[in-house]
């Protein structure tokens, strides 16, 4: 920045001031020389002297130069007029000379202006261009000029650029050699892709275009392609990885735009029966069987949302050879070439589904058989139980002796136990089969527990400590939960050692989503291996406990009841110290759909 000097209301730079002094001195000298030569009657011998100041002034300040030329003309005219009057010829010649001053000044001003405008234009292009521009010497490779763009791109300042050789900008010898070859060909080059090194030595991809300005100077424009090139390399890299992953994937993978297949891996090709080439461009919807098509459309429409979410659904596919296969589709939104696309994993579960169906059928058949068997067992049991009851109701009237009565009582007890086992088997078969609906109601827990204890007469068999808040309410199926409590208390009583003691405790943490009701005994405990067995409904229970027959299936039923509520039963047990069965019931009643799943 040049120093500013303020004189009056004019603000001048230092250079301006020097020029002003030069112009004034030259003009005054010219006037003085002309005046002296005229005074000595030598005539106006050096009018050309004025051109020095006029040309100098007009070159730097075109408008003021013209004014100066005018002034010089007037002064010259006046001097000649006073000295040479009435020499008409001399006067005409002086006037012509004065006019020539102005004409020369006008011409100079005009051309100067033209140069200025064109230079300004080029400068502005050079400085404001989004391209990097470098002018370099093609013999010595010194950088004559570099604009801010280049400097910023490579991390230098413009001044630093001036001290570097153009050839040193290349990242490696290879890039430099290629550049020399092209430059040596003598042709103007456009878009030569090469790699520069930044000030920190990092690679930076650029495209060079150059043209010769004259014998030595070459103008080179530089396009920054680094971001693009890096992205392309990355994409190529990840695309290779992608390919490797999908080629060997055991699941079918397709990439789709809407539902049109853009890519399919070998597994999908095998699954669908089409070649991989045939798959490309195929509509995924076309390979789905007609019955599932509308459902697929709904599923696929969700892919086109503004922000699609990962999604899954099962469909049946029609393969090329007419086979129907089931598969689960997992959709993941991805971006492909900046366009939204879908990555669809297709997991063939035909065999699995068939297997599952077979298992379901077997289970259903087993349930049906169990029901039929139980039904057939129950009916003949009725007369046995009924007659035994009748005889025991009034033994005297049937002439039954005390000994016979005792025998009959044992028979009745056995029949009753058999009845219970059959009933439990049936209850389980119902629970495992269709959905059982729960009769939800809100009730007092302590009320329910007391009713169960009173109903089972447990206080006669053991000491029972109930620690449940009296105002505690559950929303559940009261009858089924009563059964669960009854089973667990009976279980505790049956397996406790005298003095028998049962603790029923409510445990709660306010933020915990479950009510927890613990039923603890001081009994024989359960070993690790027995723990898995006690809730089972299909055999194996015989060995779990000494006399498991009394409660065997009831624990399995209790477990099912709690599961229907969306809860579970946990067991903590130590052999010879006791067991704690904890019922976990959700505080919030599960939605209908939820408890179907459980």
């Amino acid at each position: 920045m040049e120093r500013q000097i303020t004189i009056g209301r004019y603000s001048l730079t230092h250079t301006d001031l020097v020029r002003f002094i030069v112009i004034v001195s030259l003009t005054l000298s010219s006037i003085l020389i002309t005046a002296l030569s005229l005074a000595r009657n030598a005539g106006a011998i050096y009018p050309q002297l004025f051109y020095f100041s006029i040309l100098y002034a007009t070159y730097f300040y075109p408008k003021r130069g013209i004014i100066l030329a005018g002034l010089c003309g007037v002064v010259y005219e006046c001097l000649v007029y006073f000295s040479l009057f009435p020499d008409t010829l001399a006067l005409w010649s002086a006037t012509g000379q004065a006019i020539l001053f102005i004409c020369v000044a006008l011409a100079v001003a005009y051309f100067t202006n033209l140069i200025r405008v064109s230079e300004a234009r080029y400068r502005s292009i050079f400085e404001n261009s989004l391209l990097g521009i470098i002018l370099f010497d093609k013999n010595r490779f010194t950088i004559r000029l570099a604009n801010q763009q280049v400097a910023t791109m490579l991390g230098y300042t413009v001044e630093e650029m001036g001290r570097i050789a153009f050839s040193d900008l290349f990242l490696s010898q290879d890039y430099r050699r290629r550049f020399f070859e092209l430059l040596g060909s003598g042709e103007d080059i456009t878009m030569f892709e090469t790699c520069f090194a930044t000030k920190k030595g990092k690679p930076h991809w650029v495209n060079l275009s150059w043209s010769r300005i004259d014998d030595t100077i070459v103008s080179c424009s530089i396009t920054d392609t680094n971001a693009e090139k890096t992205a392309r390399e990355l994409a190529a890299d990840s695309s290779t990885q992608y390919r490797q992953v999908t080629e060997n994937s055991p699941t079918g993978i397709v990439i789709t735009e809407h539902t049109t297949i853009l890519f399919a891996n070998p597994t999908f090709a095998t699954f669908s029966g089409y070649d991989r080439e045939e798959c490309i461009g195929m509509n995924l919807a076309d390979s789905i069987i007609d019955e599932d098509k509308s459902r697929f459309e709904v599923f696929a429409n969700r892919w086109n949302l503004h922000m699609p979410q990962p999604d899954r659904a099962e469909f049946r596919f029609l393969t090329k050879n007419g086979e129907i296969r089931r598969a689960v589709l997992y959709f993941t939104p991805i971006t492909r070439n900046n366009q939204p696309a879908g990555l669809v994993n297709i997991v063939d579960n035909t065999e699995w589904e068939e297997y599952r169906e077979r298992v379901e059928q077997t289970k259903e058949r087993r349930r049906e058989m169990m029901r039929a068997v139980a039904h057939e067992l129950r009916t003949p049991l009725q007369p046995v139980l009924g007659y035994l009851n009748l005889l025991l109701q009034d033994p005297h009237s049937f002439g039954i002796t005390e000994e016979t009565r005792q025998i009959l009582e044992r028979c009745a007890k056995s029949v009753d136990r058999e009845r219970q086992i059959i009933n439990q088997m049936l209850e389980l078969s119902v629970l495992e089969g269709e959905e059982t609906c729960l009769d939800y109601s809100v009730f007092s827990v302590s009320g329910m527990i007391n009713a169960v204890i009173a109903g089972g007469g447990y206080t006669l068999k053991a000491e029972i400590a109930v620690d449940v808040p009296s105002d505690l309410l559950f929303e559940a199926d009261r009858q089924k939960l009563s059964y669960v409590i009854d089973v667990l208390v009976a279980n505790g009583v049956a397996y406790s050692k005298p003095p028998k003691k049962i603790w029923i405790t409510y445990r709660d943490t306010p933020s915990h989503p479950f009510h927890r009701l613990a039923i603890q005994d001081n009994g024989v405990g359960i070993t690790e291996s027995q723990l898995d067995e006690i809730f089972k409904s299909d055999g194996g229970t015989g060995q779990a406990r000494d006399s498991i027959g009394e409660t065997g299936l009831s624990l399995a039923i209790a477990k099912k009841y709690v599961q229907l509520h969306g809860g579970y039963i946990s067991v903590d047990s130590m052999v010879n110290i006791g067991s704690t069965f904890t019922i976990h019931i959700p505080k919030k009643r599960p939605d209908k759909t939820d408890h179907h799943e459980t």
Partner: protein
Amino acid sequence: MKRKIVVVEDDQPILDLMDILLKKLDYEPVLIPNGLDALTAVRADPPALILLDIMMSPLSGWEFLERLRMECNLREVPVILFTASPTVPEKMKKLNDPRVGILQKPVTFDELRAAISQFLG
């Protein structure tokens, strides 16, 4: 005058048993081995209560119940479903009829008494 209880049941040993038990409970049992005959009988002489087996043919217990409820003079007769089938309780729940009770075979003498007295006091 003893109150009449109709037992519809296709299993003869159970009919025999019910005959004795109901008499013991001081009711007058009417034993009918199939649903169609039972329907004719109850139309002619409405009983105080019906003990109804479900798995019967030609007319099942459910069909019997349906037809029974269509008769205006039989609509109020209490019915106890007397069955060995495990799926009956769920179906009964859906029926939601306070005049229908259930007894699952086999029942004890006390259970039978309790179930009947629930309707007949």
